[in-house]
């Protein structure tokens, strides 16, 4: 219980930090990093929720985190490619 609370609480704090940075800072790259930190917070939380009391860990949130990580990485890559393209366009103008 205490371990889960600590781990999940760390997830909540990561999420809040990411959300704050996402709202406050303007540059695209910072927003993207903030978004990824928010994502890590959510993954933390899901993993913490998977383990409640003395029961066997719940495989459903584990599977969601697993696919979530890969999807988050590819979404970040797409956003980075778009950001770079935007910058190229700005330079050309």
């Amino acid at each position, binding site marked *: *219980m205490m371990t*889960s*609370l600590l781990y*999940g*609480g760390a997830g*909540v*704090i990561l*999420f*809040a930090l990411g*959300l*704050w940075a996402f*709202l*406050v800072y303007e540059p695209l790259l910072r927003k993207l990093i903030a978004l990824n930190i928010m994502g890590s917070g959510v993954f933390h*939380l899901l993993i*913490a*929720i*998977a383990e*409640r*009391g*003395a*029961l*066997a*860990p*719940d*495989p*459903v949130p*584990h*599977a969601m985190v*697993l*696919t979530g*990580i*890969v*999807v988050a*990485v*590819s*979404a970040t*890559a*797409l956003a*980075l*490619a*778009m950001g*770079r*393209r935007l910058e*190229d366009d700005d330079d050309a103008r």
Partner: protein
Amino acid sequence: MRRAGTLVIGALVGLLALWLLWVLRDVLVPTPRLAELALQELPNTGVSNPVTGVLLAYRAYDTLLELAVLLAALLGIWSLGAASPGFQPAGTVLRGMVKLVVPLLILTGGYLLWVGGHAPGGAFQAGALLGAAGVVLRLAGDARAGLPPVPVQRRLAVAGAATFVLVGLATMAFGTGFLSYPPAWAKWLILTIETAATLAIGVTLAAAYVGGQPVPRSGEDGPL
């Protein structure tokens, strides 16, 4: 003014965090959940690792759509123009390390793919390792991140979702419904899907790291 706005946002986000922590405390008590049902039905899925069972049997539809998301992201990256040329070729020490690390990554990926049936592992971890091998190669100066020629890349990137759909259609044709495997075949169908998914995820991640339309080498098919 900007500073004041930042502080207000900070205060609001802080309140949100406190509320979420409060909720979390109540959530972390043993309550009815899907785990018992998932573990109880596991012998029927053909795998003994519950996470793989969830990914490829209970929620196979979800995983199929996730592979489609990966493919969509890669298509987006490829449609944003040509990739920047590779970095400069690696020096002797880095080249030596790459020669050592890349085969090891591929070997570990294969191991994780196989072990995923009964222990932590599976297509996503194995695919991530293959992608990492691509990243290492790109950093060492290979403009194409060690990926095969462009037409093969395209086919491999589609392979995961395509194999998934084909298996789904085959199970439909046999009358068990879309992606409900007959128990006798389940293990091999899951392994087939996972192998294709591993290749697709690895290629997608490495190609995403290249960050643009792959530049064909001389004598190859042109750009997309």
